[in-house]
């Protein structure tokens, strides 16, 4: 196998929570520049997979390579510094900060002044702030948030908060962006906008891993899909292949009974 354009390689990872095996020997490779989706019934282990990729906890066994580098024993913030951004299934925006400030926090990775310099507000801090502001404005514009820039995030509708969370993750300039159910709780129109946004993000060259239950969205925009059930991969392929895969249909129908 040639590996040059795999940005992420997952090699047989497992994760146990006490007695519960949330992920069992999961392997998949994500090609750079594509939208790679992970689907599966509730409790299949999708969020756990994202948490493993971002090193929120270590895998029980197996290894994860990002751009050929092992993620073993990396802290979540180090993973972010390497270029993996993410959003959360249970939204985690900074409610008491404005939209702009939320995104500015995301620019943390591209600045380096510490306590002493910030206390004195040295000219270098001033310059850095200017760069951060420009960067933030660009991200806000990209996600159509500029009109809401100075509002407190806590007071905004859910759909907008979700966009803020993505904007914030984009500000870290990720190479890989993990979205955990970005359209859950959104209405039809918002979902459509979000689909557009995700495509736009991919078109800037960022690889996207998308976890979703919304099949229309998944089938509409994914380049490749992996299906999990009870922590195991049961299928992988294009939208068409997945839709016609009897195992997948089984997994979903079984759950709905």
């Amino acid at each position, binding site marked *: 196998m040639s590996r040059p354009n795999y940005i992420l390689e997952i090699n047989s990872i497992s994760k146990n929570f006490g007695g519960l095996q949330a992920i069992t020997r999961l392997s998949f490779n994500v090609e750079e520049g594509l939208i790679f989706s992970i689907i599966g019934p509730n409790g299949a282990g999708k969020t756990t997979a994202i948490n493993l990729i971002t090193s929120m906890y270590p895998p029980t066994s197996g290894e994860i390579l990002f751009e050929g580098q092992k993620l073993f024993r990396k802290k979540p913030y180090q993973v972010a510094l390497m270029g993996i951004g993410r959003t959360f299934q249970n939204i985690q925006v900074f409610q008491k*900060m404005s939209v702009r400030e939320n995104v500015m926090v995301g620019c943390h990775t591209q*600045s380096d002044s510490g*306590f002493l310099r910030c206390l004195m507000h040295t000219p270098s801090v001033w310059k850095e*702030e200017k760069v951060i502001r420009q960067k933030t404005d660009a991200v806000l514009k990209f996600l159509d948030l500029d009109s809401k820039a100075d509002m407190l995030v806590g*007071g905004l509708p859910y759909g907008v908060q979700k966009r803020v969370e993505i904007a914030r993750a984009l500000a870290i300039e990720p190479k890989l962006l993990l979205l955990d159910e970005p359209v859950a709780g959104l209405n039809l129109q918002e979902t459509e906008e979000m689909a557009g946004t995700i495509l736009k993000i991919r078109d800037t060259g960022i690889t996207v891993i998308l976890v979703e239950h919304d099949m229309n969205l998944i089938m509409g925009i994914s380049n490749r899909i992996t299906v999990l059930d009870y922590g195991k991969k049961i299928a992988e392929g294009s939208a068409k292949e997945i839709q016609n895969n009897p195992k997948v249909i089984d997994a979903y129908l079984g759950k709905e009974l």
Partner: protein
Amino acid sequence: MENRKGFSLNISKGHNFIPIERKRTIESCLLLVNRMLLKQKDNLCFGILALVIVAIPMFVESKYYFIVLNVIGLNTIVVVGLNLLIGFAGQISLGHAAFYGLGSYFSGILTVNYGFPMWPAMLVGMLATGAVAYLIGYPSLKLRGHYLVMATLGFGIIINILMGELEQFTGGHDGLMGIPPLTIGGLAFDNDLKNFYLIWSFVFFFMLAARNLLNSRVGRALRAIHGSEVAANSLGINTADYKVKVFVLSAMFASVSGSLYAHYITFISPSSYDFYYSIQVVTMVIVGGMGSLWGSLFGAGILTFISEALHIAEQYHIIAYGIFLCLVLVFLPEGIVVGIYNFFLKIKTRKAIIK
């Protein structure tokens, strides 16, 4: 749409009770306060603070009021530092009396017992206090949960006991006397008025430094940690490191204030640094508003004033503090200043949404 309905209903209900003209004055006053609190007007606030500091001695004559004002200033420095920890990083310390005390005792012991020059003694005190805070903060902040509260609580009590027991250095329970007043060149800060200028200059610059910190990368990171630690981490912020550092910084603020206190009063004894003082400063942070710089000044001001006003009934202090804290927590859980500020920010946000 639903949002809009609920909103307009609330407003009309709230305002019908107040006559029109009075409503207008109240509104414009509050708006002014709000404007001043907005970041863009921060410089204006500092300008006003500087003016007030310079002007106060023209209106205040009594020595008693100067003492109160100076104590307010000293407390403000501690509270601003503590607020960086509580209000921004979301960690609580119940041992700030110890850091305040370490500043006092380092300054006192080094100058009185060892003939150290005063400003270097203060600097040594600050750095040593920071180092001690690091030793406490590092292990307890590594763990999740509120270990810092317990660690600082225990530490505060131990330090307070040591102040009384290590007699050969600290003078024991009788205290340490004859601490020299600070000097700059030939100018000695040896009375209440001179100390007023000295202490409040420190307040001014420490608040300015805190403001700088908050309006920068580090400040945003701290607020992010308070908002959601996992999210902060996912954005490349080393949250454990930041929490330790802000704890060290807040201990250093307290230490400097303690040094100033020692040189001002020229006499220190363990009773000034007991658990009650730690509680007092935490209360000031909460009353003024967690995460509000100007709230810290306000909280320190109003509570120092109250506790001075109640001086006759000393045993009721802690009760008065308790009641005040309860009232604030029930009616303005975000603190007085922040409460008013957020009220207006919410209105602004909602209005913008309706548009």
